[in-house]
């Protein structure tokens, strides 16, 4: 197993990938998120958002203002449960 430093475990984003992104001109966390994928996995940034923000600043990027936009659900939810929310008028489940 190689000596990688992981900043986002959910999407396997390495510190090297963040460094690359900033070197390519992505200076704010939203842009770095879109390029590297950090914060878009299972935990939706709970473990990596603050760390990536600190790393982007350390690498010369912009000071963060807002975290990346959070979307519901805040916690993993199955499609089956989500499907029960929609009432399309059909009495059949």
């Amino acid at each position: 197993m190689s000596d990688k430093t992981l900043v986002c475990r959910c999407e396997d984003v390495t510190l090297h990938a963040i460094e690359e992104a900033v070197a390519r001109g992505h200076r704010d966390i939203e842009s770095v998120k879109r390029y590297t994928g950090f914060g878009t996995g299972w935990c939706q940034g709970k473990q990596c958002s603050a760390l990536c923000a600190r790393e982007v600043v350390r690498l010369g990027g912009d000071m963060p203002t807002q975290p990346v936009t959070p979307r519901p659900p805040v916690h993993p939810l199955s499609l089956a449960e989500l499907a029960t929310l929609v009432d399309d008028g059909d009495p059949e489940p």
Partner: protein
Amino acid sequence: MATVRIQVDGDEMDVSAKDSVAVALVRSGRWLLGRSVKYHRPRGPVCFRERCEGCLMRVDGVPNVMTCRKPVRAGMKVETQNVVGSASFDLLSITDWAFPKGLDHHHMWTRFKPTNDLMKKIARRVAGVGTLPETVMPPQAVEIQRVDVVVVGAGYAGVAAANEVARRGASVLLVDEARARGGEARLLSAAGLEDEDEERVRLSPPVAYRRKTTALGVYRERPNGEVLDGGIVLVHNAEGLCAVECDALIVASGVTGGAVAFPGNDLPGVITATGALVLLSRGVQPQRVGLVGDGPLLSALSGRLRKLGVRCHGPFAGTEVQAHGKSQVETLRAGKESHRVDWVVAGAPPSAAGELAVQGGATMTWSDDGFFVDAGDDGRTKSPFIFAIGSCTNRRGEPALEQAIAAARLATRSS
């Protein structure tokens, strides 16, 4: 101690009836629970509070079960997912070995369309988390509720706010994802670090309280598109979903520590400070621990570990160390020294669990190396519907409690 027999990757195992699946596995010495999505690196539980990806396993034919809080059951079938082979020998981990600097999917094999199409086909097959469940879930009805105020988070601040709302004659629903009230304070006391103040978690009736209930989202309009002055909070527990319509939401959801950057930081056995507190509270004790990073919990934890006779190394800065091991952490290298360890506890500056507040219209700020919900001393945020209190706003102790009371008063002003 009552035990139950479960099956893990085909082998039978007797575990404590009170443990969650992940805790039972860690207690038995197994930290390697699965492999990561891209490089198939060994992974294991890290946060022990359903806020990471480390403990995901297939349980009784259902994929992606967060085993850190899944209670064991007699006859339960637990399987590693996401591997070709086994957890300890996954053929797909060749990706990790073949790309020591990482695989740049933006540029790799993008030059020629046919090779790119083939790569995408392979990636789609191989990537992802888990496979479909064996049986179809039966439909469950959604419960609809209406209260004046919802409080998310039953730590000291949340409990204080809920009690004040009830005292003022408004209806309140208090929810918390954990099995008992008290939040961070309860975790510290359960791990033996400090005494819990029972007064702070006592509920004045008629506060409606649901434990092991997670708030999933906040909506400012009904499904039919009708915009609300208040909102709907979607909550979830073992019984299913509940849509709670309310006039105000008080977010007291606390903070998360998050990851610390150093080589090998994703090895099974590298855990957060709260993860260590959960294990200690379950009576799982290491012999040797490496401490990395900082944060208030880390120093409190190291004091407790030393008192328990645990050999502690550090704390070291993330820039000073590397973690090594084959399928779980074995050594922590700091400079020229190499320390054998059972756990590495990585502590990070706290950052708010503020997603709900932001969904409802609040904003966050960056301070003290973390994100916090932007709220006043009275809990007010940019949104008249959302109040935020306690550690998620970077306040603790007495200021947090005063903020909780003030927010409860404002939230019930029109009630």
